[in-house]
């Protein structure tokens, strides 16, 4: 199982707790994890990736194992620790910087 941590607003929207577990067949890539997450929680569609282009929303970042994976190839395998469930895949909202 892949562990995914969502920003607070999306946890509320999806009705889930701090972490979500998703099952991924085949290569455990960022695309595969996000596809599995959206399949399990369709209410998240469009909130992490644009509905049409599937591009990451500009104010979200993807982290794992203390690395920023946001701009890494979307189909590259995630680190072993994520694949083995030892570390979560983090979806993080950008700091507002004092914005309203």
């Amino acid at each position, binding site marked *: 199982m892949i562990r995914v941590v969502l920003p607070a607003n999306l946890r509320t929207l999806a009705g889930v707790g701090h972490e979500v577990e998703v099952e991924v067949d085949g290569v455990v890539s960022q695309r595969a994890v996000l596809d599995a997450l959206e399949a399990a929680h369709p209410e998240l569609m*469009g909130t992490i990736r644009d*509905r049409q282009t599937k591009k990451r929303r500009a104010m979200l970042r993807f982290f794992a194992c203390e690395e920023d994976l946001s701009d890494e190839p979307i189909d590259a395998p995630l680190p072993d620790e994520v694949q083995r469930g030892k570390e979560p895949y983090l979806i993080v909202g950008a700091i507002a910087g004092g914005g309203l």
Partner: protein
Amino acid sequence: MAKVRLLVGTHKGGFVMTSDERREKWKIDGPHFAGWDVYHMKGSPADPDRIYASQSRGWFGQVQQRSDDGGATWKPVGNEFKYEGDIKTHKWYDNSDHPYEFTRVWHLEPSLTDANTVFAGVEDASLFKSTDAGETWSELSGLRTHPTAPTWAPGAGGLCLHTIILDKTHPDRIVTAISSAGAFRSDDAGKTWKPINKGLRSNYIPDPDAEVGHCVHHIAMHPSRPNVLFMQKHWDVLRSDDAGDNWHEVSGNLPSDFGFVIDVHAHEPNTIYVVPIKSDSDHFVPDGKLRVYRSRSGGDEWEPLTKGLPQKDCYVNVLRDAMTVDSLDSCGVYFGTSGGQVYASADAGDSWKAIASDLPQVLSVEVQTLS
């Protein structure tokens, strides 16, 4: 005893406020969708327990919500707003051509007769329709592909379609308004559109009486008199007696004719309300006084309504969808401010009371009169 339900969209969530017909004591439920912009919530005239809500946030995009129990519980529904066919372009702030790009839903207008049908006005400006209670959305692309659309340019809030008026006596008629393109009318259920801006004059565009390019802020109509439309433009309050074909200014003695809201009394089609704002530079009320102005003559002659409203040190704004009227015998009028206050009048504006004082910035206020 009749009940009144207010649907208040704010910068940080939606609130449902209820009262009996005396409108003295209010119960506030919320925030629903906490932390999100709720641009608009509106109930279906065909089924008052069916409420649609637009929830968005810069981080996470657009989410649509539906309640089937009067706002007690909510369910996310479809949020795919896909422009049909060629995307095309509109003008950007620097006058370059910018592809149409969906950003958010500004306004939801449920059908007058079918609870499963609802229209959505979106940014970048277009009109969408759902016939399955918000699960899926289809663009009525005739508006966005109007020959003038490549010349439309956004206002400070974006290129947004924010006003949708349906008319029970002309079921195929839809009136919309776009900032800052102007007003448009369809008489064939949204297939084709015509600009209805004749008589508007805007000194902030190169050709002040151009066919399009006007920053229309809001339009209101009384259902008993659908050919009479009232408009709050960026500057100027206007009136049309022929469904928008021609407009004339009715700003009269207003202290400022800049503003956002305009609404019509539920039982007096010639009684209208505006909240003058000092200017487009300042975006707060003139002289530190929050005053609703009422005209009982369909414009030109206005009286200030101040009883119960702050008359010093007040610097709030009232946004375009943040005023509404109920249909009780003594018409209730409601509005919300950028300072988080919601004011209610149970006597058609003669006196006011703050029924919420510390909400987030209010983006929209709608009311349902429940029997």
